[in-house]
Structure formats: C-alpha cells, structure tokens
C-alpha cells in the first residue's frame, strides 16, 4: 500500500525536474576516483563504504529500469545514457510499475500520524482529500518516503514537501540528523517557481546598474550576496546556438516562464531570486541507525529526501545527481528491509489498542481556535526563508528566530485544532514549525561553518567537529553530537 499526500507520479521534487543520477562505471579505478572527489566535498562527514554501496545499487537499479523498458536516450556511441532521468516521464513510469506490481495507491491522501503499539510503528492514519474521509492503514512496517522540507517556498514542485514525515518520525520516537545542513537555495526567475539550476551555467549575472557580478564561484552565494543590496538579473548569454537548442529541448519547463512573458533569456536579462530548498536539496533528515533504512523505532524505515543523506554527501548539498542516486538506493534498501521485518512479525489482531503518535495540531492541550494554521505557517516561513536568517547564520539571529518559533510552537501545542481537510493544513503548520526548530537548534549546536551550514560568526571549519548532530523531542528539542559507528548490517 502506498499513500501519497499529492499524486503518485506528479508529486514532489523529481516529477517536475530533469535530474542527473550519480552513476559511475563499475571498474575500481573509476569508482575510487568518483568517491574520493565527492568525499572531499563532504566536509569529512560522508562514508566511503556507503558511497560505494550507493553507486553499486544505483547502477543495478537503473539497469532494472532499462529492462522494464524506460526509454533512455541513446548517446553518440549507440549506448543508452542512463545517468539522467526526465522527471515527469520517470515518475509516471514508476507509477505504472507500482500498478503492475498490484500495489494499492491512495492519491491525495496525506498521512497525518503514525500508529504505535508497544513502541513499534504498526501503521498510519491520514485523510483522503477527495473522498473527505479519514483512513487508517495497519502495517507491520512503514517506510517514510515523504520527501524533505522546503518550507512552502514555491521552489518547483515542493509545496507538498512540508516535513510531515520528519514530524511523524520524531513523534514516534525517531531522531533526525544533519538538520543544520538545510540552507540550500535555488536560483529562479524572480516571479516564477522554476528553480532549475542548469541554465545558469551559461548565465551572466548583473546588478541593477548592469555591473557584472563576479568573484564567487558558487552561483548561489554570488546571487545571495548581491540580493542583500538590491535586484539581481541574469541573461543566458554564454550559451551558443547549439546549447540553446539543447536547453530548450531538454528543459522545456525552464522556458515556460520566459516564453509566456515574451522574454528571450539568451539575449534579454531577467530578474532572479533565490527560493529555499531546505532539506530537499540540503542533507538533513530522519536518522537511519543502519544503512538498510532502519530508524531507532522498530517497524519504522525512511528513504530518499526524508532520510538524512550525510553518509553520502556529508555537509554538502550533493545536488541533483547524488540525491537521485540516494533516492534510488535508499528506497530499494528500505523497502527490502521493511518487507523482511514485516514478514517476521507475528500476525496481530486488528482490535489491539493502537495509539496515534501525533499530538500537536490534533489534540490541543488548551482552548481551541485561538491560532490559525495559516498564521503559524507564515511565522515559520518568516524565520526560515530569508537569506539573512537562514543562509547567512549567526548565533544571535538563530537565537532570535528560535524565540519566535518556540512561541509559535507553544501556541500550536495549546490551541491548534481543525477537522477534515483543514486538519491537513494544521499538520503542515505543525511540521513546518517543528522542522524549523530542529534545523535552527542544530545550527546553534554546530558552532562552526561546514558545507551548507554557514555561520558568519564562526566562518572557519573546526577540524575537531567531525561528529554529527542528532535532534529529537518536540516540547523541548534535544540536540546530541554523535559519531557514526557501523552496526553491521550493510544493505
């Protein structure tokens, strides 16, 4: 059974993207070179053993995709090129495979809380938006593949990614990890939603006066710094006619905004902005205790953007290609491990006393109705989206943001309540506040700059800080440093 908050096949970051996949030939030399290069960008937090496993599983799974008949393009040597997936086609194809495997799919059916029995996850409760009815699913194991959190920034395809899975996991007793690595932003035409970065490889960026912006190889930072002083513009003037054609043919949705406004982006400059991509392109998520997708809660597994990718990308974003490889490999591992776990569980009666793990947004401790989900969402967004609070962090600003977020959390805890469709929004507000608090508490704990986590007041990397930060707890958020230790069980 698959329950999807949106629609399986169109929902989430990948469907509207066109993503590379981290795919490296199986010979030892190529693999070692690729792993070393990525590891060097990880701030020392990635693990080469996991990286090698991701590469191997991704290669195998893409071969399966080819066997099933996915129409990969053919390169000039006559071989299929499998290191790139056009999102809309890929996700539609995967939906068809699920149907073929006779998986029941519930679309527009957001999960709202996990069900617990004696400390183990035994199912999920949610709401069917189009039927306007509650549902519950009893299952011997649950895999959260609910994506990351992009804080309703309007980054392409990610409004469904409100961190619901992260909230549900913590409510059930799991930990998150690496939530400080959540400050990733995508460049986007200022008015639009299309945060696809590829075309900007051929861009020249200018300020209001037309001065060319230079001196920063990281385009996100180049644009972010200039946006602090005023509008920023881009023109894709470095693309020759051949590249222009490939861009248009390969990335049609990049050009919808320009075409529909009558702008030629290759010769006319257009205003750009940055939209927060949170942990979707950042790194933090549910902490896996084993590489097979297990969390510390029996019966609960996580995969893809919902799970922390620190073992693969460390403190870095990774970008689309490693993230797609992570989704493919962690998904197949978690599915396999969850199936084995479920098979080993004794048959249970359905009349057992199940407990819903969710509290805030569902069962207020005080008088209901004094707060609105919309207002709470805006409070979370106001603390997490602005560049000067999240991308360029300081202890002072993080602390000030946490005062606002904690206060909003207490208000939600006491008063937030809704029924039916409105309850979905209430749980989104809860998830956004919770994940913002996890991100900023971790960001305070990591008293240095490393990878995606940039502290203006601690601009240097501290060579001692090679540990991770795990976060848990909701009323009081706890942060603890830990070192990854292998607990056996490779996938």
């Amino acid at each position: 059974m698959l329950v999807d908050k949106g629609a399986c096949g169109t929902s989430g970051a990948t469907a509207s993207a066109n993503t590379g996949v981290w795919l490296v030939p199986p010979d030892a030399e190529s693999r070692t070179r690729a792993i070393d290069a990525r590891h060097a960008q990880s701030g020392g937090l990635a693990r080469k053993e996991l990286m090698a496993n991701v590469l191997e599983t991704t290669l195998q799974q893409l071969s399966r995709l080819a066997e099933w008949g996915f129409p990969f393009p053919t390169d000039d040597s006559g071989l299929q090129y499998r290191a790139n997936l056009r999102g809309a086609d890929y996700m539609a194809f995967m939906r068809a495979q699920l149907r073929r495997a006779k998986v029941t799919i519930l679309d527009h059916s957001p999960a709202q809380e996990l069900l617990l029995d004696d400390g183990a996850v035994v199912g999920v409760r949610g709401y069917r938006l189009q039927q306007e009815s509650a549902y519950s699913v009893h299952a011997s194991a649950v895999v959260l593949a609910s994506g990351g959190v992009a804080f309703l920034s309007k980054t392409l395809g990610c409004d469904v990614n409100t961190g619901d899975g992260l909230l549900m996991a913590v409510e059930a007793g799991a930990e998150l990890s690496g939530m400080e690595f959540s400050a990733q932003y995508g460049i986007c035409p200022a008015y639009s939603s299309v945060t696809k970065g590829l075309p900007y490889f051929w861009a020249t960026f200018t300020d209001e006066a037309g001065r060319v912006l230079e001196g920063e190889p990281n385009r996100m930072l180049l644009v972010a710094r200039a946006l602090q002083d005023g509008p920023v513009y881009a023109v894709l003037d470095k693309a020759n006619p051949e590249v222009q054609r490939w861009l248009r043919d390969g990335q049609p949705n990049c050009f919808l905004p320009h075409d529909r406004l009558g702008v030629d982006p290759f010769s006319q400059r257009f205003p750009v902005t940055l939209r927060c991509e949170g942990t979707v392109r950042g790194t933090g998520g549910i902490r896996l205790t084993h590489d097979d997708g297990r969390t510390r809660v029996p019966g609960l597994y996580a995969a893809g953007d919902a799970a922390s990718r620190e073992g693969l990308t460390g403190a870095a974003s990774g970008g689309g290609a490693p993230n797609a490889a992570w989704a493919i490999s962690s998904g197949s591992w978690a599915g396999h491990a969850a199936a084995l776990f479920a098979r080993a569980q004794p048959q249970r009666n359905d009349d057992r006393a199940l407990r819903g793990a969710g509290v805030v947004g569902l069962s207020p401790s005080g008088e209901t109705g004094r707060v609105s989900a919309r207002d709470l969402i805006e409070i979370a967004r106001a603390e997490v989206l602005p560049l000067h609070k999240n991308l360029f962090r300081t202890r002072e600003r993080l602390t000030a943001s946490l005062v606002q977020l904690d206060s909003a959390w207490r208000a939600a805890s006491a008063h937030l309540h809704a029924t039916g469709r409105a309850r979905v929004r209430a749980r989104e507000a809860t998830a956004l506040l919770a994940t913002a608090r996890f991100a900023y508490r971790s960001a305070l704990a990591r008293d240095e700059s490393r990878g995606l986590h940039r502290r203006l007041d601690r601009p240097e990397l501290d060579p001692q800080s090679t540990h991770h930060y795990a976060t848990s707890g909701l009323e009081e958020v706890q942060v603890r440093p830990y070192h990854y230790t292998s607990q056996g069980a490779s996938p």
Partner: protein
Amino acid sequence: MIELLSEARCTGCNLCVRACPTNVFEAREGDIPVIARADDCQTCFMCELYCPADALYVSPFAERHVEADEQALTKNETLGTYARNMGWKGAKPHGADKDPTFRFRALQRGE
C-alpha cells in the same frame, strides 16, 4: 498559478483532478471539473502535461493572480505548449528518449 480551465476545450476526463499534486481541481457530477483551490497551486505545470485537450493554462507568476485571456492564448498557440515541447501525446509520456540533456551533463561535473 493556474489561471484557466477552458470550458470550450475541456472534455471532462478529470485527469487534472487526479494528477494535480496539490488538489487544486474538483470534479463535479455530470459536469467538467473546476479550479476550486487556485491558491494551493504550486505552479509546477504538471496539469498541463496531463491535459489531453490543451484546456489548461498555468501562468508563470507563482505568487499572484494574473488573469489569463483565453482568446489571446489560443491565438498565439500557447495552450498545450509544455506538453508539445516535452513530446507528450494525449496526456501520455513520450519523448524522454529524445532528451538531449545528457549532452551537457559532462560540462556540469565538478560543480
């Protein structure tokens, strides 16, 4: 944001109701669907791909409503451009095998 569901073009297949990730459309008994929750639109353009009648138009403005002029959109052949540019036919995936994106993945390496 979604700005147009053309009553003249819509065949009432309700594929948009099924495909929209944020549940913007609502099916109606014996009638064509309506845009019921435009403010929930995330401007992902997926509905345009899944409309076999080219009846939908998503404006590029993600955060404000800009009314669409159906006549103008029809005249300049904007309706259905996303699906056509992708190579999709009749709301079904086509054209991934013609995707030239692999040609510049090599250029991106090391980024």
